[in-house]
C-alpha cells in the first residue's frame, strides 16, 4: 500500500453570509492523497476548492471531520484537536504570490529555514540551491516589486520548496500571469514535481491546467467532490452532466429511457428516433437522460455511416481556429451539434451534411427534471 500523505475524512465547513444564511463550503468531503501524487481540485468559484485547501493548510478551521498529514492528526472535530498552520509540515503557494515586499528574494526564500532555526551556513547553501533550481539566482538581492509576475511566482515556488516539505499546496498560482508565461511555468511545475517527487494539491478553475498537472482530478461543486479520477476518466467517462460540461465541450441530446436489456444496452427515445447506447450511469426505465458526446469524436460526412449514430443537418457556422476547425451543424430548431475537425477546410453555409458518431463514444447521463438543457448545475 502506497504512503498516504494527506487524508481528509468527512470534512465539513459552513460559512454564514452577511444576512445569517449558512453556506456549506465543504459538504462531507473525503479524499486521500498518495505520496508523489498531484491532485487537482477543479471547479468554478464558490465550489469550495480553496476552502478545502486552506483547511488542509490550517488557515481555516473546519466544523467537523478529520485531517491527517503524514499519518498524524492535524485536525479532528471529534477529538477537538487542531494543529496550527505553523506546525504542519507543508508549504503553500498563494494566488497573489504573497512575497514579503520589504525583504529581498533571498530573505523571502530563507524565511522558512530561519523560522526553523536552521544554522546560517546551511541556510545560505540551501537558499542558493533552490533559487538556482527555479532559475532566479540573479534575483536574489532584489525586492519583489522589482520583478515581473513570472519571476515573483518562481520565487514563491522556491520559498515553498526550500524546506523540503513533502507536501505543497498551490492556490491558483498561475491565474495572475499572462498566457505564455503560464504555459511555461506550468510545464516547469510538472517537471519539478516529477523530479523532486513531492505531493501536491493544486486548486484551479482551468481545466487545461488540471489536465496537464494532475495525476488525479477532483471535480468539485457546491462543497462536494462530484467525481475523482484520472484526467482521462474525468474526460471520457464523466459521471454527470456537470462534470461533462465543466471539462471540455460536450454535445447533448435529451431523451427518455425506453428500455434496458439484460446485456446492458439501453434504448433511449429521442427527438431523432431511438438510440442504443451501452454506457450509462444511474439510469432506470422511464428516467430522463441526456446523450453526450464530444465534438472531436464527431465527423462530418456526406452519407450516413453504417453502425454509427447519424444526424442530418445543415451547416450553420464554420470557424477556423488554427489547429482545428469548428463546425456548428443545425440538426433541428432546438439542437445544434458542434463538431471539431483537424482538417482546416471550412464548410459552406447552409450545406447539407451528416454528422456521424460511434455508439461507443456516446454516454447517457442523468438529466434532472429541474435542469435546463442550456444550463449546467
Amino acid at each position: 500500500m502506497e504512503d498516504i500523505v494527506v487524508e481528509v475524512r468527512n470534512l465539513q465547513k459552513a460559512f454564514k453570509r452577511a444576512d445569517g444564511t449558512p453556506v456549506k463550503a465543504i459538504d462531507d468531503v473525503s479524499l486521500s492523497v498518495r505520496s508523489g501524487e498531484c491532485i487537482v481540485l477543479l471547479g468554478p468559484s464558490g465550489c469550495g476548492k480553496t476552502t478545502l485547501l486552506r483547511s488542509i493548510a490550517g488557515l481555516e478551521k473546519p466544523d467537523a471531520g478529520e485531517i491527517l498529514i503524514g499519518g498524524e492528526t492535524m485536525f479532528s472535530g471529534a477529538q477537538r484537536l487542531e494543529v496550527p498552520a505553523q506546525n504542519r509540515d507543508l508549504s503553500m503557494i498563494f494566488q497573489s504570490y504573497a512575497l514579503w515586499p520589504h525583504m529581498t528574494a533571498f530573505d523571502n526564500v530563507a524565511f522558512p529555514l530561519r523560522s526553523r532555526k536552521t544554522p546560517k551556513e546551511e541556510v545560505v547553501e540551501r537558499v542558493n540551491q533552490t533559487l538556482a533550481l527555479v532559475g532566479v539566482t540573479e534575483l536574489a538581492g532584489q525586492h519583489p516589486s522589482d520583478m515581473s509576475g513570472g519571476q515573483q511566482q518562481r520565487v514563491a515556488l522556491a520559498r515553498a520548496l526550500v524546506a523540503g516539505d513533502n507536501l505543497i499546496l498551490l492556490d491558483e498560482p498561475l491565474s495572475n500571469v499572462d498566457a505564455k508565461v503560464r504555459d511555461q511555468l506550468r510545464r516547469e511545475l510538472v517537471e519539478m514535481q516529477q523530479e523532486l517527487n513531492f505531493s501536491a494539491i493544486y486548486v484551479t478553475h482551468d481545466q487545461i491546467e488540471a489536465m496537464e498537472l494532475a495525476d488525479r482530478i477532483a471535480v468539485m461543486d457546491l462543497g462536494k467532490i462530484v467525481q475523482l479520477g484520472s484526467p482521462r476518466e474525468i474526460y471520457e467517462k464523466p459521471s454527470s452532466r456537470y462534470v461533462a460540461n465543466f471539462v471540455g465541450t460536450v454535445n447533448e441530446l435529451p431523451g427518455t429511457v425506453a428500455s434496458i436489456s439484460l446485456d446492458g444496452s439501453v434504448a433511449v427515445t429521442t427527438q431523432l428516433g431511438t438510440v442504443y447506447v451501452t454506457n450509462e450511469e444511474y439510469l432506470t426505465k422511464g428516467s430522463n437522460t441526456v446523450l453526450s458526446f464530444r465534438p472531436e469524436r464527431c465527423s462530418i460526412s456526406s452519407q450516413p455511416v453504417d453502425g454509427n449514430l447519424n444526424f442530418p443537418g445543415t451547416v450553420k457556422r464554420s470557424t477556423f481556429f488554427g489547429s482545428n476547425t469548428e463546425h456548428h451543424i443545425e440538426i433541428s430548431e432546438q439542437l445544434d451539434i458542434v463538431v471539431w475537425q483537424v482538417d482546416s477546410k471550412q464548410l459552406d453555409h447552409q450545406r447539407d451534411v451528416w454528422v456521424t458518431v460511434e455508439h461507443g463514444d456516446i454516454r447517457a447521463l442523468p438529466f434532472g427534471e429541474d435542469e435546463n438543457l442550456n444550463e449546467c448545475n
Partner: protein
Amino acid sequence: MIEANAVVAQEVHSDRHGVRALGARFTPFQIFSLLVGFGTASLILYPFFLVLVRLFWVDGSFNIEPFRNVLQLPNLGQLIFNTFTLVIAGGGIALLVGFVLAWLNERTDARIGALSDILPLLPFVMPVIAATAGWVIIGAPRAGYLNYYIRAVLDLVGIHLKQGPFDIFTWYGLIFVYALYLIPYPYLLISAGLRNLDPSLEEQARVCGAGLWKTLRKVTLPNVWPSIAGSALIVATIGFAMISVPILIGTGAGIQVISTRIVRLLNFTYPAKMAEAIGLSLIVLIVLIGIWRLQARLIKGGRFATIGGRAARGRRIELGRWRWVARSVTFGYVFFALIAPLYGLLITSLNGFWTPKTRWGELTLEHFRTVLWLDHKTRESLFNSVYLGLIGATIGMIIAATISSYVQRSTGKVSVFIDGVAKLPAAVSGLILAIGFILAFAGPPFRLHGTMLILLLAFLATHMPSGSIAADGAASQVGHSLMEASYVSGASESRTFWKINMPLMLPGLVAGWSLLFVRYAGDFQASALLSGTTNQTAGKKIIEIYEMGSFAYLAALAMGLTAITGTVIAVVFALTRKRSSISAL
C-alpha cells in the same frame, strides 16, 4: 476563537507539533495582546462609567437633582443655540470646502504631485491652540495684522477705515476659525472615499455626454455619500468638543458655548457643579449618538459603488485654465490655516509687542529667550508638553499597533469590543473623559491629582482613536495572505508580528506617531481640567497667559510650541523618506 476556560493543550504528539485543544489560543503573544487591549479598555471605560454614575448617583442614592440643575442653568437655551449654530455652520462649511479640496485633488488635474498629498495635512503640524492664538493676533479688529494690511491697501484706493474690515471676535469670525480647523477631517475622509470609487462610473457618465457638474451631482456625490456622512459625524464630534477656539475667540465675541461653560463650571466652582458639567456634556453625547444613528441609517439605505476589479486610476478631469483657480483654492486653504496665523505668531514674538506696525529693524530673538528660557514656569510647561508628547505618543502607538494587529488577526466578540472601545473616546467629548479621570484617579485611592501620570493616562485615553485609526491604516497595509504565508512557512504568531507586520506597518505607525505627538504636545482638552501648577502643560499655560492679556508672551509660547511640533514632524518625515521605500503593492 477565545474560550473563557483556558484548556491546557494536550501533548498528544511530539513537542514540535504543539497540538492544542480546539478553542484555546493562549500563546504568550496572544496573552500580551489581550492584556494591552483590556487594559486600554479599562482605562477608557472606568472613568466614563464613573461619569455616568456620578450624574445619577449622588451621596449613595439615586438622585436626578444634578440633572435637573443642568436644566435650570442660566442661559441654557442660549448656550445650546450658540453651540449648535457654530457646529452646524462651521461644520457645514468645513464639509463643503473639504469635499471641494478632496475632489480637486483626487479627481482633477489640479494636483501638484506629492505636494498635494502633504498640503492638506500641513495645518496639522500646528496645534490648534497655537493657531487660534495666531488668528487672534491677525484678526483682531484694530491691532490685527491682516486687518492692518488690508486697511493699508484700501487707503491706497481712497477708502479709510478706523478698524476692521474684519473682526475675528464675531459670529462669522468664530465660524470661520471653526471651519478652518475642521476642514482636514472631511478632506482626508472624502479623499479616501474618492480614491476607492470606481473611476469607470464617472467615465461612463462622461461618455454618455453628461457635463462636469451633472457628473458630479449624479454620479460622484451619491457614491461618496458614506464618506461624507462619516465626515459629518467626525466634524460634529470634534466641533462640539472644541475648547481652544471658543475660549480664545468666543469669549472675546461674547459667545459662550457648552464646552467653555463646562470648563468654567469645573474650574471656577467647587466640585458641587461637577454634575451639571457632566449633564451638559451628556446633552452633547446624546446629539452625537443621534447623528451616528442617522449616519448609519443613511448608509444602509443606499447602494454604493466601490472599486471594481483592479485598482485602476481613472483619467483625471482636465480643467484647462481653471486648473490654477483650483490650485489657488488649495493654496488658499494652507495660507489661512497655517501661514497666516504662523506669521502673526512669529512677528509678534520677534517684535516683543503685539502691534501691526512692525518695527522691522528691531526684530530680535530676545523675547523667545525671555519667555521660553528665562521664565522657568513657561519653560517647564513647554518641557512637560514635549515630554508627554514623546513618551505618550510612543506608548500610545505601541498600544494602538498591538490592538490593530490583534483585531486584524482575530474575529469575534472580544476583537470587536476592544476595537470599539479604542475608538470610543472619539464619540465622547474629551471633556467628559477628563471629568471621568478626575473622578477616577485624582482622589483616593490613586491620588494622582496634579501629577504627570494622570495627564499621561488622560492623554492616552483621549487620543487613542487617532492612534488607533492610524494603526488600522498601517495594519491594513499588511494583507492577510502575507501573514498566512508566514504561518505556513513555519513562523509563530509572534515571529510573524515582528518580522512581517511591524516592518510593513512602520511607515504608517510613524506617521500616526507624529500626529499623535502634535496632539499630546498641544493638548488642551484634558489639560484644561487636569493640568494645574504642578503639572502645567503648554496648552494650559497659553490660556493662562491669554487671560492675563500679555500677547507677546502668548505669541512666543505658541510659536515655541509650533516650532517644536513642526521640527519633530519634519525630522520624522525626512527620516522615513530616506528608508528604502516600500512601494505600494
